[in-house]
């Protein structure tokens, strides 16, 4: 029963090219990093005394200015970037849902107050905050960076969730749930949010993509993790140590491509999910005689 449903979903997925391509690329990248960690046992920080070697059989992506293997860096970097993306994305979505759903469901004063909070966070100069934080927290792990990004990027989700919840609260099934004695929290958790699951998933994917890009940006100016390797960190190293000028494309092109691919595939995934849930967006070709 479950298997046939799963096959049904797979068949459906094949119809929607965006979803397919997006999830394929993303899965490939994730697998690349996970399998890479298991299989490619080179320590990215080991100095091999062979500086700036272009890609060759023993170093598939060459070495950097210190003689460290770039492939190892990219594998670890991808994994860490994804970690930051997922954690920051989750954090942002959870905070966003908490605040957005509360504001949307209760309305009135609570809504206005939470909107005030949301708007304040929106206008927070994140960069200035991070520079100040960087001054205090000398050693920043990727988790701290993820935390900072998560805690400052939730307003987008909060707004989106609030709007959806606000439109749902006057639906009759909510009234009936109330009149069946369900508490407000119960209604939000059991009736409202599950109804918006697809929406929440899309919020998460978008937050994740934006978090990865945010981390890359932060790392590029040196405010990223101070002791972990992420794709952004690799980019920073390559800029600081003048890889472009030295022609060592193998150091900055691969991380750049992977970051771009992650962002694009997540956005494609999102767009594909949107097509499924919003029939009007479907292109003509999808519907002919099946």
């Amino acid at each position, binding site marked *: 029963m479950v298997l046939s449903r799963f096959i049904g979903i797979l068949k*459906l997925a094949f119809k929607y090219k965006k979803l397919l391509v997006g999830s394929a690329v993303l899965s490939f990248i994730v697998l690349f990093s996970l399998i890479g960690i298991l299989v490619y046992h080179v320590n990215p920080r080991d100095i091999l005394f062979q500086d700036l070697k272009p890609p060759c059989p023993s170093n598939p992506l060459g070495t950097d200015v210190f003689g460290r293997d770039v492939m190892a860096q990219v594998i670890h970097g991808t994994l860490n970037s994804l970690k930051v993306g997922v954690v920051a994305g989750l954090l942002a979505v959870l905070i966003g849902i908490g605040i957005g759903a509360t504001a949307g469901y209760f309305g009135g004063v609570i809504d206005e107050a939470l909107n005030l909070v949301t708007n304040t966070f929106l206008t927070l100069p994140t960069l200035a905050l991070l520079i100040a934080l960087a001054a205090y927290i000398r050693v920043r792990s990727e988790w701290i960076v993820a935390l900072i990004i998560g805690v400052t990027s939730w307003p987008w989700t909060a707004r989106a969730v609030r709007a959806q919840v606000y439109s749902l609260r006057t639906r009759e099934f909510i009234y009936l749930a109330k009149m069946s004695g369900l508490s407000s929290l119960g209604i939000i958790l059991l009736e409202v949010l599950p109804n918006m699951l697809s929406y929440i998933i899309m919020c998460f994917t978008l937050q994740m993509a934006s978090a990865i890009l945010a981390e890359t940006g932060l790392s590029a100016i040196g405010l990223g993790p101070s002791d972990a390797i992420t794709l952004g960190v690799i980019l920073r190293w390559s800029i600081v140590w003048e890889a472009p000028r030295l022609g060592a494309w193998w150091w900055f092109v691969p991380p750049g491509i992977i970051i771009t691919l992650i962002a694009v595939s997540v956005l494609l995934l999102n767009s594909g999910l949107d097509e499924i849930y919003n*029939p009007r967006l*479907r292109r*003509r070709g999808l*519907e*002919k*005689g*099946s």
Partner: protein
Amino acid sequence: MKKVVNVVNLRGGYETPLGFVRAVDGCSLEVYEREIVGIAGESGCGKSTFARLMIGYVKPPAYVINGTSIIGDINVYSLPWEERRRRLWGVKVSLIPQYSMNALNPTKKIRDIIVDVVRERKGKSISSREALAMAKARLEELGLSEEVLNMYPIELSGGMKQRTVIAISTLLNPLLLIADEPTSALDVSTQKLLLFLLYELVKRRGIVETLIFISHDIATLRQICDRLYIMYAGRIVEVGGIEEVLKNPLHPYTKGLIRAVISLQPEVRGITLRGIPGSPPDLINPPKGCRFAPRCPSAKDKCKEEPPLINVGGRRLVACWLYD
């Protein structure tokens, strides 16, 4: 009498994740000049899809399978989409879909909406001043003051919006106006006014040559229609003059529909009215034979075979073996 609309054996439907819904399965219809024809049917019978198929407004996930539709001198399906848009829609035929009053662009003033619509049809051959003059005249004929032109849709009441939509749809004096449940979202008093206006448009002012009025409410249809088509599960099951069909219904479905009408008569207080048990069939896999048979009190063995529309005299048609 000249036939203005001639639809023959139209067949079509739309794709859903669960399969293809054959919403219209071989329906024919004719409208003569200055006639108001009603299509009565309940939810899911295909009447709205029928309207769209008639005018060729079919885009995926909707598809037409076969059949012809001739409006005026235009054979709808012989024209490509762009030609239909240019020569047919808004010009020779206008469709007012259900809830269309909510389709007025809320960010535009009525005058801008009207000019857009007219310019799109007639191109540069008509200036916006001329278009607005036409609009003003038409609005006045429908009982709306010219101030409406400068308002936004949100400032208008339901009835006013509906009348505005009718004004815009009939600006170019189409041969055929199709109104799909135009009164369902309105209060009773506004409904009456709207029915009056539609009647005037066709019968007295000649602004619209013919009208097809689609509704689930037969008492409403009674008010302005000359002839009635009863639609059930994608098929036409009865046709006739409106008074005849309502006073002397032939098809068991029509009888059931009429029996379920609550009239404001004293007798109604004491009796128990009966509806039609069961529900309409699934149009993805419609049953073989007569589609009403599962719910019909007079079903026989013969009903396993689909009854054609049988002529029982004087343009009265019934799709039922009881009248073979």
